[in-house]
């Protein structure tokens, strides 16, 4: 018996493929290096430390893209804790790209506040590493631990402006809602672990319901189990909180408003992306319970699209507006996720939509970070009045970003929506498709309200607040131009990215 155990321990140890998680390890080391640099370097050199992070992340992103297909795709490692798949690679690139852009945004935004900057980048890097592991998790323990690393990191980031009561209040609200959702997710996992019991594999190794494959087999063999259904619904509720799907979207406007602008961007893009990465992997496990899942997700998608768009109509604060419009984007993505159960192209459509959303969102957030005054939580639509006159560059970039979010042809967002709608049509979700198209029409109204504020003088007789000249350094100008150009280019030519995100 001891020899058996030794053998098992040996095979478990050989399954630890450290090289396969090199990007995550490197990000963790980079994060520690930043703290070290802050101690070692003289104070005058501190402002260059985020540049180190920027270069490191860019290097890792290039490395990841070059080695995209070279890792053992489809293989599990760490004794089944992680699975290395094409989808995982796509999400890894997504998270790295968003953390890179968040670092750029933080260099613009944090300069307006007196807060430590190195720790901010440090936490962003740790969260990114956890998200990258989350997208590849194949085991509920990995899923929970990485998801909590992400969530707890976000508690800190949301309340990062610790002298601002808005930021702290948003942090507290996020903490309560986030912990509530984690509690539900955890209880769901517990129930699923409990019902799945104990399975002994062919090689004598004991497996439990924590493993995705084992749980999937159990659910296929036992349809209609009450405890399992409850567990599935609780896990879904926990994930719905993260992606901000109705009825778990209540935290979004307040938290988005109070959080520092780079964190709002990080929440809107990467956190949502992480939620969808988890949703895609658990839906695959739960697929044999589709009679339970499909109605729930259909209603959720419809309600999310309608609520997000209708609630965004009346907003005057741009951070709340973008948060609620993000809710509706989550609804469109949910539609794609639903379709992916029937149509293989839907997965590629979801991935393309996520990338188009990333580019457009960071374009808009980049402009917001420049326009924002000293009070980060107060960014009203009025502040954009006359932006075209005072700063044509920012106004143009803003129009491209918002146009893409609204889905105006020929921008990337339009193609993203088109792909999702085509796959929904192929999968036969005609009712949902109708609701989604109504949602798009409503969304054009508030996006254009914002563009109108920036481009046309307000008809309001009261004197418009004078817009101060906004200085943009060349780095930010370069990044914003690149984002806007990519958003336009992707609308015309999806070639490599389209093939890359949909190739399985």
């Amino acid at each position, binding site marked *: 018996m001891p020899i058996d155990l030794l053998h098992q321990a040996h095979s478990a140890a050989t399954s630890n493929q450290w090289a396969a998680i090199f990007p995550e390890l490197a990000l963790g080391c980079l994060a520690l290096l930043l703290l070290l640099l802050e101690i070692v370097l003289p104070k005058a050199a501190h402002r260059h430390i985020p540049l180190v992070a920027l270069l490191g992340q860019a290097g890792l992103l290039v490395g990841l893209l070059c080695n995209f297909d070279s890792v053992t795709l489809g293989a599990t490692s760490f004794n089944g804790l992680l699975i290395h798949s094409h989808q995982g690679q796509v999400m890894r690139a997504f998270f790295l790209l968003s953390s890179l852009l968040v670092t750029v945004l933080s260099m613009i935004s944090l300069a307006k506040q007196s807060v430590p900057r190195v720790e901010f980048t440090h936490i962003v890097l740790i969260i990114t590493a956890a998200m990258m592991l989350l997208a590849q998790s194949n085991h509920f*323990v990995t899923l*929970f*631990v990485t998801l*909590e690393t992400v969530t*707890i990191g976000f*508690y*800190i980031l949301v*309340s990062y402006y*610790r*002298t601002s*009561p*808005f930021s*702290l*209040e*948003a*942090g*507290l*609200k996020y*903490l*309560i809602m986030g*912990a*509530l959702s*984690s*509690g*539900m997710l*955890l*209880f769901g*996992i*517990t*129930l699923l*672990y*409990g019902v799945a*019991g*104990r399975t002994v594999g062919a090689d004598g190794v*004991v497996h*439990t319901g*924590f493993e995705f494959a084992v749980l999937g087999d159990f659910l296929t063999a036992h349809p209609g189990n009450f405890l399992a259904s409850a567990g599935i619904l609780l896990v879904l509720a926990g994930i719905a909180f993260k992606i901000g799907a109705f009825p778990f979207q209540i935290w979004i*406007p*307040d938290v988005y*408003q*109070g959080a520092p602008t780079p964190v709002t961007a990080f929440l809107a893009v990467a956190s949502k992306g992480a939620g969808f990465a988890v949703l895609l992997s658990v839906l695959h496990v739960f697929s044999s319970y589709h009679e339970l899942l499909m109605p729930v997700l259909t209603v959720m998608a419809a309600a999310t699209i309608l609520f997000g768009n209708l609630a965004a109509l*009346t*907003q*005057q*604060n741009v951070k*709340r507006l973008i948060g609620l419009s993000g809710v509706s984007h989550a609804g469109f993505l949910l539609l794609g996720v639903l379709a992916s159960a029937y149509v293989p192209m839907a997965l590629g459509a979801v991935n393309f939509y996520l990338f188009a959303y990333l580019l457009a969102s960071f374009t808009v957030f980049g402009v917001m970070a420049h326009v924002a005054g000293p009070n980060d*939580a107060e960014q009203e639509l009025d502040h954009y009045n006359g932006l075209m006159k005072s700063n044509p560059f920012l106004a143009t970039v803003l129009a491209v970003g918002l146009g893409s979010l609204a889905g105006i042809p020929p921008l990337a967002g339009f193609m993203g929506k088109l792909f999702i709608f085509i796959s929904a049509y192929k999968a036969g979700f005609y009712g949902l498709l109708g609701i989604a198209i109504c949602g798009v029409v409503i969304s054009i109204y508030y996006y254009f309200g914002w563009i109108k504020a920036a481009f046309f003088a307000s008809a309001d007789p009261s004197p418009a607040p004078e817009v101060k000249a906004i200085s943009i350094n060349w780095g930010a100008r370069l990044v914003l131009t690149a984002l806007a150009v990519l958003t336009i280019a992707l609308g015309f030519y999806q070639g490599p990215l389209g093939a890359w995100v949909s190739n399985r």
Partner: protein
Amino acid sequence: MISVSLNSYIALSVILFALGFLGVLIRRNTIVIFMCLELMLIASTIALVAFSRYNGTLDGNVFVFFILTVAAAEVAVGLAIIVALFRRRQTIQVDALNSLKD
């Protein structure tokens, strides 16, 4: 030796979870809400240990350690936010925390 059935453990854990969940929704003091959140996590750990015992697998017990670690990190960050907020606003009642609105 008195043997307690698995169902009793699940019932206890469901009751604790429901108490915690309702507490988060109903209570107005942030610290109490925080305690209710911890109660939800504890409910899961009880169920995990019971399932682990009755299934004959150790994984559930090991997961409990991860949960405890996560809960500790969450409390550390959470209390820090509450303290910082109290210094700014002199209150931790959720009704008074409504400065974020349109």
